[in-house]
């Protein structure tokens, strides 16, 4: 009898299990994925070794200088991962002006209410070095915060001003904020469980195919994909260390662009609905991309 009950109980559990599986499968629409590359988040930017293997050419300014002969070479330039744009001698572009404008804006707002500055600085007295730890999980807010969403949050709560992510004023303050971490190695805290949850979600988004063209981010930015091959006039590069230089002054666009605005632009090129900066999916993608920049210095202001 006892045995029978146990058997029955197991059968019930088993049937519940399979029912749950069916429901979960029914929830998820059919999707295709680009085969996932093995990336160890603990390696940060060094994960590019065994991935695109271009890191040795751009890991620091000395290497970029050494390989500067590739600039303009249609077959080799992609190996520099655009880092030649960050060399010190490329000194005068509107990104630098944006730093000054952002600084003036922060000073103006902080004069109006000093709490704006301490909100940005999370209670501290300085912004120096802070941006290198973004995105981070903010326990008080209960969500992942990017530099841009911190600015939006502080402006709203302290000043009752709308300085929304993906707008020029937000980008200017973000460029200023991040410039105060220029040269500091990026250190997104992968020891934080919430950050890793976001990383895993972002990683999944990176490989899922969407839109009319049925492309994933990975269709162009993973070994074996279009990366390193010509896509008409472009040659897609590695995603490693790419998060380091945003917001960046985009010369083809003639404006500052945050990384999430860049994601939206990519989605447009992929013929996919362009979700908005601040969207949770973009936050997850930014976490994924920035972990792939861990150990690489913040490179703001920049131009691309």
């Amino acid at each position, binding site marked *: 009898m006892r045995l029978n009950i146990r058997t029955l109980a197991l059968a019930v559990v088993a049937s519940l299990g399979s029912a749950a599986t069916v429901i979960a499968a029914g929830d998820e*629409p*059919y*999707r*295709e994925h680009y*085969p996932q590359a093995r990336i160890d988040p603990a390696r940060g930017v060094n994960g590019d070794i065994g991935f695109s293997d271009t890191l040795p050419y751009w890991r620091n300014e000395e290497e970029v200088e050494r390989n500067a002969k590739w600039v303009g070479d249609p077959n080799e330039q992609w190996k520099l991962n655009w880092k030649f744009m960050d060399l010190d001698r490329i000194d005068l572009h509107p990104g630098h002006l944006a730093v000054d404008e952002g600084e003036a804006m922060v000073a103006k707002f902080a004069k109006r209410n000093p709490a704006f500055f301490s909100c940005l600085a999370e209670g501290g007295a300085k912004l120096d070095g802070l941006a290198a730890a973004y995105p981070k999980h903010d326990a008080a807010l209960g969500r992942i915060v990017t530099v841009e969403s911190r600015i939006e949050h502080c402006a709203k709560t302290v000043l009752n001003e709308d300085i929304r992510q993906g707008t020029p004023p937000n980008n200017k303050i973000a460029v200023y904020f991040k410039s105060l971490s220029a040269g500091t190695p990026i250190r997104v805290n992968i020891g934080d469980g919430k950050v890793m949850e976001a990383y895993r979600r972002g990683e999944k*988004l990176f490989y*899922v*195919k*969407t*839109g*009319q*063209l*049925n*492309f994933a981010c990975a*269709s162009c930015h993973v070994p074996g*994909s*279009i990366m390193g*091959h*010509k*896509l*008409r*006039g472009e040659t897609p590069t590695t995603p490693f260390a790419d998060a380091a230089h945003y917001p960046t002054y985009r010369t083809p666009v003639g404006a500052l662009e945050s990384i999430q605005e860049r994601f939206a632009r990519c*989605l*447009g090129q992929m*013929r*996919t*609905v*362009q*979700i908005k900066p601040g*969207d*949770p*999916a973009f936050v997850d*993608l930014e976490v994924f991309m920035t972990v792939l920049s861990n150990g690489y210095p913040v490179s703001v202001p920049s131009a691309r």
Partner: protein
Amino acid sequence: MKTTSGIVAILLGPVLVLSAGAQAPADYSAYPCLSYTLPCGKIATRKPQTKTLAGALDGNAERGRQIAQARDKGNCLACHVMKGGAQPGTRGPDLSHYGNAGRSDAETYTAIHDMRTRNPETLMPPFGTNEILSDLDIRDIVAFLQASK
């Protein structure tokens, strides 16, 4: 009255010009997206679809060339070297002598309609299944490819 509408026209003129100049982003809401919340986030990817060429090809090779090169149409040049196209991509096979390969119109049509039916891992967009190109467009591209020797 005439004067009033004239003034209104003068006042509205620049506004109308501006709004016509600002191009609205194309609507891709019928296709899956990355959002966790928007309806497109729940749209299923269209499954691989085998479509057979119906009747004779009857394609226009010159029109096919234009469609293959246009960025907003086939944009085949993004990945393939093709006859008469500048700045070709290099990821896909060179198609500039496709007409010598001995491939039939039917198999070429089916592959362009949805290459996933031949190779599930392909990077090539499912041009027919996802309505990037029409039946006629694909026939014209097949004609162009077969004429590329």
